[in-house]
């Protein structure tokens, strides 16, 4: 009997010792999807036959002594903006409902070469921007902790599927917080790595200068394992960084004592005031890091609204350039949330866009200067627990500045980490951000925090 919940690391260890069959593991997840996902809508396409064939192949390889590593035989899901060979990739949109790519995205190819088994394509907000939407070809994903609640977005299906144990890891994309938001609301570890760390080749874009691909898993260790498989230079992505890829998992061990952490309180106390449960969760979190020997001090950065304005002006401008012609021809084929948000883009001038790029340079410089004597920045990942799904307004991302946007603007690594639960049992989260290409320190601190707290032992109660 395969356990209801397994971390990626746990499953990998069992598979490597031949104590768990990839076929049994995949069969158990497919049965779970069949049983549970009708309430969650996390998958928009399940690839059962393909996954079982891949699992049998993985099992034969492993039994023959060809174990590839910790992703071998691990069932994952892909946000449906990651292109997959001969499998529709729709961006959850009527506009691309017949789009069948002829090759895998580079990161998908890396994951399958590492032995991962793709169980299917996961729900997203339309083109990673609209949503939650009720007028698309598929319904929006729902939060496994309470199905009346929002998953966060745009990597909504990945958040739901990983939290529900339907897959052991999944891919997300993050242009303003689309990995860290759903990770926060669904109680996961979600890593937006440095800009350029993971190739975006073959991933449907939202805004090229802000888009990041990354892993969403139950633990920081699992994020490290997935990142290892996904990271690395790819000439097919013009922004891909040709830098060495460290051994992320090996770097998790060891002491975090002495790490210097700057807490940006004004982001969640005044700029986008978080609710009491979130503030208390973060206060407890800073105490945990102090107890682990970290040196914690307050840090002030430019107002959150500056980062959000900069990011949204850039995001809307770049996204509009992609969709402009299709919006003219097929406006009504997009969902209302996406098209009405995009309809604001023609109000932005070329001058506005360039001023935002100039402001970006200034903001990134200010963050770099502020972090000169720090290892990490800590702040909130979201201002509250997941709200009711029907209470999320069409223009919500414009109404209050996103707590996640600063690290898209800066291109630096940032991660959402669960820091407890509300009285109603909904996850709370904080955000850790590091220096450019220093995912190691982010992951190491998150891993130490998870080991020091009980939150990873609590899973959603599902039917």
């Amino acid at each position, binding site marked *: 009997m395969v356990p209801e919940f397994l971390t990626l690391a746990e499953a990998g260890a069992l598979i490597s010792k031949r104590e768990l069959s990839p076929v049994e593991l995949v069969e158990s997840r497919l049965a779970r999807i069949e049983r549970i996902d009708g309430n969650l809508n996390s998958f928009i396409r399940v690839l059962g036959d393909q996954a079982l064939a891949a699992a049998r192949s993985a099992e034969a390889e492993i039994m023959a002594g060809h174990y590839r590593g910790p992703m071998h035989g691990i069932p994952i899901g892909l946000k449906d903006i990651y292109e997959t060979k001969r499998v529709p990739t729709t961006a959850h949109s009527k506009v691309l409902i017949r789009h069948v790519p002829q090759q895998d995205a580079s990161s998908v190819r890396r994951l399958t070469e590492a032995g991962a088994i793709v169980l299917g394509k996961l729900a997203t907000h339309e083109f990673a921007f609209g949503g939650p939407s009720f007028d698309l070809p598929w319904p929006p994903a729902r939060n496994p902790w309470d199905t009346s609640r929002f998953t966060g977005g745009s990597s909504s299906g990945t958040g739901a599927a990983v939290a529900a144990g339907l897959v052991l890891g999944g891919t997300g994309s993050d242009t303003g917080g689309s990995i860290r938001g759903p990770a926060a609301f669904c109680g996961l570890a979600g890593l937006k790595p440095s800009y350029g760390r993971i190739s975006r080749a073959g991933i449907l874009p939202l805004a090229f200068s802000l888009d990041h691909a990354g892993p969403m898993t139950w633990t920081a260790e699992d994020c490290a394992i997935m990142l290892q498989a996904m990271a690395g230079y790819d000439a097919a992505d013009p922004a891909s960084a040709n830098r060495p890829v460290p051994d992320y998992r090996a770097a998790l061990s060891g002491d975090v004592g002495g790490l210097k952490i700057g807490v940006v309180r004004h982001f969640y106390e005044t700029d986008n005031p978080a609710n009491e449960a979130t503030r208390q969760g973060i206060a407890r979190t800073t105490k945990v890091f102090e107890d682990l020997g970290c040196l914690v001090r307050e840090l002030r950065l430019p107002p959150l*609204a*500056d980062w*959000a*304005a*900069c990011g*949204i*002006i850039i995001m*809307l401008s770049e996204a509009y350039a992609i969709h*402009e012609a299709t*919006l*003219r021809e097929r*406006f*009504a084929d997009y969902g*209302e949330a996406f*098209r*009405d948000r995009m*309809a*604001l883009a*023609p*109000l*932005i*001038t070329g001058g*506005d866009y360039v*001023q*935002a*790029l*100039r*402001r970006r*340079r*200034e903001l990134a410089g200010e963050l770099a200067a502020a972090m000169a004597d720090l290892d990490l920045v800590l702040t909130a990942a979201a201002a509250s627990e997941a709200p009711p799904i029907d209470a999320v307004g*069409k*223009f919500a991302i*414009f*109404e209050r500045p996103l707590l996640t946007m600063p690290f898209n603007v800066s291109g630096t690594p940032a991660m959402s980490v669960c820091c407890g639960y509300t009285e109603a049992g909904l996850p709370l989260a904080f955000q850790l951000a590091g220096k450019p290409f220093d995912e190691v320190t982010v992951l190491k601190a998150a891993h130490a925090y998870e080991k020091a707290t009980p939150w990873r032992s609590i899973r959603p109660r599902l039917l």
Partner: protein
Amino acid sequence: MSREQVEAALARAGLDVPEREKPVIAAAAHFIEEMAARVRTDRKMSAESAHIFPPPEA
């Protein structure tokens, strides 16, 4: 930005926006105005960080 100005911008962009959505979009236009104002700081000509041939201090 007035509703007329927003509708003119949508028409110039060639977007076939349903009538019922136009006032909703117009009501959200202030977000863009506020954000566009926020990214404009007091920069001189020489502040262009991407210039290969830096302009003189103005």
